[in-house]
């Protein structure tokens, strides 16, 4: 191949046609309250782990829905499970369980 001095970047958009929803579905089946989220961001605002990381549960939930598993993996590893998010969530999402289930799903061969 000739040396072009540049390369073609991979496509950036999220392709919902090919979205990988297995992790979300796994979590949803075991903890249906994940569906109640309205992405208000209260969880991220109060998050203890957000003091020293990019952690935001709102973002985790969105990324799960859009199948962006690599990013989910990076975010959830910051969680301290302290449960503050659960206390501020206006839709009463069982956030701690959600995080543990995500970890469980990420360990499974499907991802």
């Amino acid at each position, binding site marked *: 191949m000739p040396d072009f001095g540049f390369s073609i970047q991979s496509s950036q958009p999220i392709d919902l046609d090919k979205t990988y929803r297995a992790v979300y579905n796994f979590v949803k089946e075991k903890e249906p309250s994940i569906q109640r989220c309205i992405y208000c961001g209260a969880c991220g605002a109060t998050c203890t782990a957000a003091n020293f990381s990019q952690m935001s549960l709102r973002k985790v939930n969105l990324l799960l829905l859009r199948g962006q598993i690599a990013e989910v*993996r990076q975010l959830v*590893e*910051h*969680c*301290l499970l302290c449960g*503050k998010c659960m206390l501020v969530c206006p839709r009463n999402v069982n956030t701690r*369980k959600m995080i543990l289930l995500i970890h469980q799903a990420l360990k499974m061969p499907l991802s």
Partner: protein
Amino acid sequence: MKFDWFVIPFLAGLTFVFGFCCIKFYLWIQRLSRGEKALLKKHFFSPSLWVSIKEIFNESLLHRKIFRTNALLGYMHTSLAFGWFLLIVLGNIEVKFYSHYSVNPPYVPIFLNYFEPNTAPHFFGRGFRFLMDFLLLIILSGVALAYLKRFQPNRFGMRRTMQHQVLDKLAIISLWCIFPARLLAESFSAALYHNGSFLTNTVGKWLSFLPVDNLIYPAWWGYSIVLGIFFFSLPFSRYMHIPTEVLLIILRNAGIRSRYFNHPFQQVDIYACSRCGICIDACQLSTLGYATQPAYYLRSLRYKTQHNELTENCLLCGRCVEACPVGIFSTDIRSHERTLGHEMNSVHYNFSKNIPKQKNVEVLYFAGCMSHLVPGIKKAMTSILNQSGCSWSMLDEQETVCCGRPLLLAGQITAANQVIMHTRSLIERSHARILVTSCPICFKTFKENYRLNANVLHHSQFIKHLQDEQRIVTQRISAHVKYHDPCELGRGMNVYNEPREVLSHIAHLLPTNHEKNKSLCCGGSLGNIFIDVDSKLQIATNTLQQMDIRSADYLITACPLCQKTFSAVSPIPVKDIAQLVADNLLLANAENKNNYAMISENA
């Protein structure tokens, strides 16, 4: 030597139980670590063994703890256990009076009326027959109560009873049949030989219209068979608790505890559960319809059935442990099981390596994550600490840090250790002599997992000291308050009295139906990772109803999580103890600052 073929079912059963228990106990003890074996050995050859024996007598036979739960329930258990025990002991003594027995096979005292139809003519002979009849009557009354309990558990103080499995049902039916079968056999014997006393003679007389000569031998067979069935089903049913509880008491008093999942002590715990169902009422999750109580959980562990949900669905409030008549540490087992296979995928906490240098202070205050959601606590503690005149600083003023216990409660040991290491270094940096925290969750972890040089106090303890030293002065108000013991502070750390003393200095402290170790959980517990927030609030509502808080002006608690949970559903204001104190602080003289050292030394 007397023998008849009908003793075979009994004898085989007895041999089986004995053999099974010996092997099982041996295997358990063998799996103990060397240190634990040494502890056990030491326990056996020291006066502390007496404590175990006393406890075995009190609990395995007399069932004192069940008496405390409900007298009728206690009587039922005592009559069956202690009555049967006495029946066996007296039976063995009685045999001695029939001198031609040099060696007594175990079946002879059980079937004495068959082998020795004629009562010994002397006083002891008749006396023993009377005693044996009396004990049988007591036991039969216990059996009758057991029948009644099936149908009317409410009379025994139980709102919910255990749903049993087939094998347990077989065992319980055979147990219920044992003593009526004995009564029948002995009554037939009394009808023929007049060798009974007030009970068997009377029943024998009533039954004399039957062809007693033909029925007596089958009746002895029947008695032996039900005994045999019971013994054979015992190792596989809940009645395995009878022998196991003895071992449990000894191991527990020797200081052995379950340290990891599947530890031999845990196995003993599991087998020692009688599934009496007392924990079901104690557990607040049963009001939500969950069958997740230790009785079910331990059963599932014992028979190795699927129980992920049972492991997770527990508030870890410890009410079941307090209520358990056997004293099984079921919360420990759940905590240990949570560490298995549930470990988070990977954790990566980018804790800053450059921890800013803390100024040296006497008191380091750690509010805790949850207190940041209840800023009233932080504010109250600030004014109390300022008033106390000591030098202090707040560790998590700018950025909240976590104590690591939420991770521990979820079984995330590795992750928790990372957090603990970090937070510990933050605390040690300040060289404070006293670490005060507002959160019982943090408090428990600081005490148990941190190995800090500083003296760790919950703020209620700290305030108590300040009050005692008169470093803060509070006014009395006419309000009535009720105090809710947070699980982690009360049952978790045995801090019951300090908050009560602090409160009684300020307001009228009203008693509740659930004081101290009987206190209810607010439902907000971080221990439960299964139920959703709606269920938690339902528990909180139930708790408030049971505490009957409407008679008070304020509900006082000492945990930000309890306060947050209760506030969502409480009809009256919920306050932290620190808030009540801060609201009623009187300006004190700031002269005796130097006395402060005393607190840290005395505490």
